[in-house]
């Protein structure tokens, strides 16, 4: 019985080898096109603190922190921040403030702190730090209360 089994197995093996030897090969071609893409994932919002002379409210000041965003891109895109247009200030603050958003990036692309648009040509992932600084001139000072701003980080 075991002899019959062995013979059958051998016959199947030979038949398989025969089949493989006769088989032809075909190339299957895969094409793929990736258009410029970009993903922004906000990790943390920022915090602004006042300077000792109360003329600066900034994420750069001691105790302040930048907002962080993860950028992943194929390249062929541009990164920028918009001027701050909407700001909530306490009612006691009636004087004008100049708001300056900036960003920097570390990772696949090293971008020094800037407020201008940056062209990203190569693929990779970065951690983008977003800062916001408000300054008052002359004798004006930041007031007691809550300030809130929204910085738009754009990838296009």
């Amino acid at each position: 019985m075991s002899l019959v089994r062995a013979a059958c197995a051998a016959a199947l093996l030979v038949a398989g080898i025969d089949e493989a030897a006769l088989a032809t090969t075909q190339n299957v071609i895969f094409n793929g096109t990736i258009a410029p893409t970009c993903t922004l994932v906000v990790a943390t919002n920022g915090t602004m603190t006042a300077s000792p002379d109360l003329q600066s409210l900034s994420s750069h000041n001691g105790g302040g922190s930048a907002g962080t965003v993860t950028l992943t891109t194929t390249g062929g895109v541009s990164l920028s921040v918009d001027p701050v247009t909407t700001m909530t200030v306490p009612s006691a603050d009636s004087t004008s403030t100049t708001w300056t958003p900036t960003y920097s990036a570390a990772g696949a692309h090293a971008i020094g702190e800037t407020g201008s648009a940056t062209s990203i040509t190569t693929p990779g992932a970065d951690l983008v730090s977003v800062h916001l600084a408000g300054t008052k001139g002359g004798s004006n000072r930041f007031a007691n209360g809550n300030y809130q701003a929204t910085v738009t980080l754009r990838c296009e």
Partner: protein
Amino acid sequence: MKHARILATALAVGLAPIAAKAQSMSPMRGEINSFTDVFAVRVFPANPYDRKIRVEIHVYDQDFQPVDARVSPNVFQLASQASRSVLVVVPFDGAAERKVRICTESIPFPNQQTQIRAQICGKFFGRRKS
């Protein structure tokens, strides 16, 4: 025929994760020819976060001025890791061609002192054919 089926299945399996998870909006570039007074673009915003976010779609011209386009839907909630299609219909307003930006915007962590609005903009060029 069999090879075609295998190829189609492989492409579908291979490309599906890219479309579903790896982008905040796709496509980000496009040229559209239209024989009418408007041109239409279908974009797919995606939510890369592990929780639901509110998404807004805005259409701007080259100077970032709002364009009176029809966006459906223009505001919606998007589940974690999900994407959905949005139809944008842009009028030519009498011009032979028009360049617009279609932007996906979201503020994933609202009510903070310094909020960050993430904005992904695609550039689209519509050309009117007569």
